[in-house]
């Protein structure tokens, strides 16, 4: 008997079909990976499983018994546990409180925390998920928070565990630990469904892989018969080519940071004594777990903040004047992290967003906007960068993430910048858009720009960078030539467990 069986699930929202006749099953004691790009229908399927949505057609069975649609309670009672991508934890409450939420009848007079304590200890020892039950969630690291989420599911005696993009926020070492834990759980009799779009992981962890594309189930393979290339092709629907790496002779320094420090506002990490030089024709990859000072560094390089101390040289000259418009005018291109809020103004039309960064240089007699010229140059860029839209007058808000990113690339790269600060440029995009964005960055490098590529995705960093630096707790290690470090060492530096001199002196 199947542990969990989806049968002919259909769900549409208006005219959009999110799930089209999906049937799949989970066997006892296996790890099944659900692979698909953003918008392929993975999340909708899980929301149906958890009763947040009711499917238009089809049903779900757990161990042969039909699951009541539209009821979260029913799914939990059937022994399904979910580890959401965005944790459903409360920062101001303790680990124990977060875990026992909803496990006791609300009419109970006195919360039985002592028993909960014992059960929690037992579970965490049995599965190697160590956690302090009295810690406040806000004081935990991301990896620990995830541990709490997993224990939360186990605490409810879940026999089916569903993990939605669990490694998106973890360092490579934390991921490795997670995989070990998951394999232990499967041995103990649990069945696991693993949702991801990272091919390496899926190949490592799962027994079987199903692939979703545009709401349809397009393939099912045993992991031993799958390869990275075949999976990528199934997921995207065509062959995906990644930009080829080419080492160029690096030129003059475009950006020099000498002992730059930044006292950050509350809630973000301060920078201390950053030394980093970026040259023409090179890409420096900055690896690090989010929240270790990347935001501060990016805001300095975009002219949004000035360092508290230290010296910043831009194109060989000491920079005394900050401000984003000054930097853009002198040849800095910015690909901001939060593309929808920081990168574009959604309510404005596409041509207006193109104009945003060069309002002064493209206006008539410095006073009026030359609309005709602006619209026609927008049209040209839309064609050149293949932005899928109705035209320059379409509202920017309606573009997909990938097309917004293309708009930003077109705006900042068409002026042949000398320095590009690219903050997680491929995050959240689908495979096709990722390869486009990466290719554009590589092309800019070939044309002579220096690039600082901030990313959490180590595969991306290693594929594109000439040199790799690691940021942890506001301090930078490296940069190292990318062929002289490996992913493991970078991972250790990202979690602060390895110091650079143990690799080599730079």
């Amino acid at each position, binding site marked *: 008997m199947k542990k969990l069986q989806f049968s002919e699930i259909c769900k549409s929202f208006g005219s959009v079909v999110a799930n089209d006749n999906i049937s799949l099953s989970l066997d006892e004691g296996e790890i099944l990976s659900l692979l698909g790009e953003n918008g392929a229908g993975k*999340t909708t399927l899980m*929301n149906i499983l*958890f*009763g*947040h*949505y009711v499917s238009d057609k089809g049903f779900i069975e757990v161990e042969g018994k039909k699951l009541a649609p539209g*009821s*979260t*309670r029913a799914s*939990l009672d059937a022994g399904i546990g*979910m580890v*959401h*991508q*965005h944790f*459903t*934890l*409360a*920062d*101001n*409450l303790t680990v124990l*409180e*977060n875990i*026992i*939420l*909803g*496990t*006791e*009848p*609300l*009419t*109970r*007079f*006195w*919360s039985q925390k002592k028993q909960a304590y014992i059960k929690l200890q037992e579970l965490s020892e049995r599965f190697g998920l160590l956690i302090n039950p009295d810690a406040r969630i806000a004081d935990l690291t991301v990896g620990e928070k995830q541990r709490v989420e997993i224990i939360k599911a186990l605490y409810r005696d879940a026999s089916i565990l569903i993990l939605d993009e669990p490694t998106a926020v973890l360092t490579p070492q934390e991921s490795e630990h997670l995989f070990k834990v998951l394999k232990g759980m499967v041995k103990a009799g649990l069945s696991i469904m693993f949702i991801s779009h990272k091919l390496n992981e899926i190949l490592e962890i799962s027994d079987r892989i199903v692939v979703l594309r545009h709401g349809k189930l397009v393939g099912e393979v045993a992991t031993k018969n799958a390869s990275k290339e075949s999976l990528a092709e199934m997921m995207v629907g065509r062959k995906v080519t990644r930009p080829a790496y080419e080492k160029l002779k690096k030129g003059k320094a475009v950006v020099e940071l000498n002992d730059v420090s930044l006292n950050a506002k509350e809630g973000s990490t301060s920078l201390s004594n950053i030394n980093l030089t970026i040259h023409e024709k090179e890409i420096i990859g900055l690896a690090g777990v989010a929240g270790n000072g990347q935001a501060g560094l990016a805001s300095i390089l975009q002219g949004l903040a000035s360092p508290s101390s230290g010296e910043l040289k831009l194109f060989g000259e000491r920079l005394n004047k900050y401000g984003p418009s000054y930097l853009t005018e002198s040849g800095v291109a910015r690909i901001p992290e939060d593309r929808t809020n920081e990168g574009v103004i959604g309510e404005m039309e596409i041509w207006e967003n193109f104009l945003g960064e060069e309002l002064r240089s493209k206006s008539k007699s410095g006073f009026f906007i030359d609309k005709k010229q602006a619209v026609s140059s927008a049209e040209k860029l839309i064609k050149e960068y293949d932005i899928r839209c109705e035209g320059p007058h379409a509202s920017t808000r309606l573009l997909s993430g990938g097309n917004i990113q293309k708009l930003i690339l077109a705006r900042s790269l068409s002026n042949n910048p000398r320095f590009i600060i690219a903050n997680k440029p491929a995050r959240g995009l689908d495979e096709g858009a990722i390869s486009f964005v990466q290719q554009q960055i590589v092309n800019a490098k070939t044309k002579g720009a220096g690039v600082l590529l901030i990313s959490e995705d180590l595969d991306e960093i290693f594929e594109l960078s000439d040199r790799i630096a690691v940021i942890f707790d506001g301090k930078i290690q490296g940069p190292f030539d990318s062929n002289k470090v490996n992913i493991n060492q970078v991972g250790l530096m990202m979690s602060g467990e390895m110091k650079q001199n143990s690799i080599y002196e730079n």
Partner: protein
Amino acid sequence: MMELFEMMLTTGLWASVIRIATPLIFATLGELICERAGVLNLGIEGIMTIGAMAGWIWVYQGGDLWGGIVFAAIVGMIFGFLHSLLVVYLGVSQHVSGIGITLLASSISYYAYTLLIPFSTTPPKIVPFSVFEIPILSSIPVIGQALFHQSALTYLSYILVGVTFFVLHKMPIGLTIRMAGENPVANEAQGINVLLIRTGAVMAGSALMAIGGAFLTMSAFDAFYFGMINGRGWICVALVIFASWKPGKAFLGAILFALFEALQIRAQLIGADVIPYQIFSMMPYFLSILAMMLVARKATYPKALLIPFRQGDRI
């Protein structure tokens, strides 16, 4: 300075501190429960007004005192329900709805009062809750008489501080209430109905606010006046922040504010010839602002306060 110090040691001062604090304790606890569930209830001022009116009218029409308290609580709950309907179910701005509730409830109170009570220059009075002494405890020097020579409503407010703490921090239902104010999605992921929890908390909190108002007409002034709540509700909103959403601290905050108030009334008597009395009436508010600046800067708000939750809002 000596004079002030001596005054601090008199039972009379502390007795009036407790009398001033009692309605604040009720209403602050009420607001605290609402905000713990993620709902700011600015209807507090109006709900206190209508509680004061409802309790008083019940007794004036011949009802019994405790019946008046229950009636006030029920009326408070009705307005709490109206507020939840708007902010919890419809997701209207909590500020706007709260102020609307305050205006509506106060106006209805005055309207009902003018309709039901014939005009007279001296407002009619009722026989209020009587004072009774708690043996042994009341013989503690200075504070014994102040704390335990009061009316039953004051004792009820002490008890409610403990009850509120117990419910919020020891009972499973309290955990779900706090979770509704911190991360409602976590509640939903456990199959708990956030909207129901929030509505229940707002109604319970509003009942306490109304009882706080009723204390004024049924234990302190014995009559209903126009404008009698006089900003007490707003003070309670500040007290909740001062208390970092903790019932015990809310009690202390109410006492502290009441102490400022009692001192300024006495200072007016002493210094009225030299300094205009308005300066003294201003002092409690001024000192509260100072206290807030010291304490509330580091306050950690319930994370989901003011944020409407819609079922199926996904993660």
